[in-house]
């Protein structure tokens, strides 16, 4: 069954090809069926592969399939091969599974759009690229997938490219990602120089054999460069600014690419390279600090935003911060676990917000919502599940994964990591319930025009919501403390350092047994506190937020304007670069370089038009050239030494 793995990649590619080439001529239904069918079949194969993997004994759960030799040049060799191990099989299940639901949802959501086939073509291409990213068995293939998802993200953010804000956001995403990709590419080159191979197996084997000293300079640089790539793709400080803007794309895209899958590529990459990262304690500290800082920072911005999708976007950045925090303290399993549960509930939340926006004919401002509960009940109920899940109330999925991260941060890291994480959790619970209340509860602030069209979404949108709600409810039980299925499943990938309890137990001695449960209680308490705050401020005394905003107007303004980071970046990087570019363009390029190039080209062209005159059309002349050439060659060969 494992041999089927290439089919997982093939189906979305076929879907892309069909919809891309002839999608314009097909009926809308057909386009949708093709796209969903491709991902559906891919999902089915992914399940088969998963069970195929389960049949193997845990320690030998790695399967590599060589497709072909791709590039060979000197000692550099890149084969195109796929690697199935617990980590990648889990990832392809998430990508194809959540992707399938989002594809179905898109049929309803994008129904009126004229770029229907283009949309599904991109979406299938994205799925293909993402699968390539996680399945590749070497860094180069991963990098190609990495770039390709970036491209698809660019295309889909700018899907409504007639809108200037959309095309600007797409450009921003692309350029900011490029900064990270630059680091990633350098990292890969350095890996090749250091290990003389770019195959995962080869690199990690060499690294784990102790050829590289722990904390050595090279490995620190490599991992820092790789992490630089991860900050770009996964929207961490300092490269997170593109993600909130990326909400200009269609909402299912935000759900699939900018919440569930693509942005987690950085986490996947670090988890994949755990062997390397474990060799560099310094990098690990950097990862953990950046992760924790991002978690808190983004959450604080989320507190005051009014655009429903932007709140979710900052929430995504913050949750990604959690995952990096987990990876940074060495708890890769916890990071990947949170990646999975986050994929469920964040996709659910985005799709739910999409359903709200759909119902309100495109309104995204929460100040113009409210009281939608009774109008769109299914959306409300599923949204509620997602909100509770992300807030971290047991037994919903988010609780288990977030709790585990906080526990790990405390046990392996230090109190500060935990405190920052816990504060971010408080913020999370608050802003999510603020969102829920502002959207669904209270008095309706919807303008009457949108009110007339208010309707619950069609079935093909609500069914994916329901399924995701079930997943957000139950997904956490895979990682239930003490009997964690996911720990056992992923342990071959992360070795003994990947997961928790036993280590935790040794570290904190006699309190061992009670610590996890204590933590659970504390984090539940934090979540409830956050929810109560939201209740207090938005239901009990609605005038409170305004008062607070006036009282702490400085902080409020700072938060509302996202700490002015965009403006700072503009002043520090964008504008100076623009100015220098303008100078280079006008002076260096247009005058110096173009002048030179045109001069040379003119010379060559003139030379050519003189030379062509030798082509007289007379056989006699041609024969003469032959004789002359012949004499020259003979003289040269015979007397030429």
């Amino acid at each position: 069954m494992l041999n089927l793995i290439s089919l997982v990649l093939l189906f979305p590619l076929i879907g892309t090809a069909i919809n891309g080439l002839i999608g314009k001529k097909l009926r809308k239904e057909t386009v949708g069926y093709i796209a969903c069918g491709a991902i559906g079949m891919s999902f089915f194969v992914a399940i088969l592969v998963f069970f195929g993997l389960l049949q193997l004994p845990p320690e030998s759960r790695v399967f590599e399939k060589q497709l072909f030799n791709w590039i060979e040049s000197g000692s550099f060799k890149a084969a195109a091969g796929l690697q199935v191990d617990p980590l990648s099989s889990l990832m392809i299940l998430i990508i194809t599974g959540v992707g399938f639901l989002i594809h179905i949802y898109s049929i309803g959501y994008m129904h009126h759009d004229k770029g229907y086939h283009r949309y599904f073509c991109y979406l299938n291409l994205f799925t293909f690229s993402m699968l390539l990213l996680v399945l590749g068995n070497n860094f180069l293939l991963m990098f190609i997938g990495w770039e390709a998802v970036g491209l698809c993200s660019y295309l889909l953010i700018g899907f409504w490219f007639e809108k200037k804000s959309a095309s600007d956001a797409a450009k921003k995403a692309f350029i900011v990602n490029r900064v990270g990709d630059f680091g990633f590419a350098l990292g890969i080159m350095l890996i090749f120089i250091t290990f003389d191979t770019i195959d995962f197996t080869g690199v990690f084997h060499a690294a784990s054999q102790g050829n590289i000293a722990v904390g050595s300079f090279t490995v620190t640089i490599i991992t820092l460069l790789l992490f630089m790539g991860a900050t770009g793709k996964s929207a961490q400080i300092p490269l997170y600014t593109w993600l909130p803007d990326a909400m200009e794309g269609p909402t299912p895209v935000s759900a699939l690419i900018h919440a569930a899958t693509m942005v987690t590529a950085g986490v996947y990459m670090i988890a994949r390279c755990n062997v390397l990262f474990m060799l560099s304690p310094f990098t690990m500290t950097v990862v953990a600090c950046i992760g924790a800082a991002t978690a808190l920072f983004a959450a604080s911005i989320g507190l005051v935003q009014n655009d429903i999708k932007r709140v979710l976007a900052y929430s995504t950045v913050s949750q990604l911060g959690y995952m990096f925090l987990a990876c940074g303290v060495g708890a890769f399993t916890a990071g990947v676990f949170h990646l999975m549960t986050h994929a469920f509930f964040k996709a659910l939340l985005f799709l739910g917000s999409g359903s709200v926006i759909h119902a309100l004919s495109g309104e995204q401002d929460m100040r113009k919502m409210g009281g939608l509960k009774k109008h769109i009940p299914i959306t409300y109920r599923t949204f509620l599940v997602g909100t509770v899940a992300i807030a971290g109330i047991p037994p919903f999925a988010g609780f288990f994964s977030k709790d585990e991260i906080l526990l790990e941060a405390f046990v392996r890291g230090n109190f500060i990591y935990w405190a920052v994480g816990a504060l971010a959790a408080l913020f999370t619970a608050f802003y999510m319930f603020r969102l829920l209340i502002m959207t669904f509860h209270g008095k309706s602030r919807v303008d009457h025009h949108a009110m007339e069209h208010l309707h619950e979404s069609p079935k093909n949108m609500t069914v994916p919501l329901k399924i995701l709600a079930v997943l957000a409810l139950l997904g956490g039980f895979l990682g239930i403390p003490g009997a964690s299925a996911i720990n056992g499943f992923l342990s071959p990938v992360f070795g003994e350092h990947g997961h928790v309890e036993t280590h935790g137990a040794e570290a904190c001695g006699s309190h061992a047994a009670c610590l996890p449960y204590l933590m659970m209680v504390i984090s539940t308490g934090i979540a409830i506190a956050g929810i109560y705050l939201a209740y207090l401020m938005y239901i009990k005394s609605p005038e409170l937020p305004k008062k607070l905003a006036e009282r702490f107007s400085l902080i409020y303004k700072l938060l509302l304007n996202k700490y002015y980071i965009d403006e700072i970046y503009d002043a520090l990087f964008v504008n100076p670069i623009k100015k220098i570019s303008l100078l280079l363009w006008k002076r260096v390029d247009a005058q110096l370089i173009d002048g030179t190039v045109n001069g040379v080209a003119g010379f060559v062209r003139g030379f050519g038009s003189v030379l062509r005159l030798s082509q007289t059309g007379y056989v006699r002349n041609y024969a003469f050239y032959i004789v002359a050439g012949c004499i020259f060659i003979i003289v040269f060969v015979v007397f030429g030494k």
Partner: protein
Amino acid sequence: MITITHYLVLSAILFMLGVVGVLIRRNAIVIFMCIELMLNAVNISFVAFAYHLHSMQGQMFVFFTMTVAAAEAAVGLAIIVAVFRNKETVNIDDMNIMKW
């Protein structure tokens, strides 16, 4: 005594005559004859070498060269006839529709 050198010099002279003929004549048929002259000059050298080396390969080569020359003559004359039918001349200096 006639040595191999004599034959080779003769062959070289005939070859040169052929080459010069191709370069200076205008009538396509005469040019073609000059080319035949070149080929046959080479044949002389082949036979002379074969005799000198006591090897049959050279003589064998001559037969094939003659065959090839015959085939070339057939095709070449046909081409010249085709040109003549369209243009009513075989002067190669009149043939330069295509140049530069």
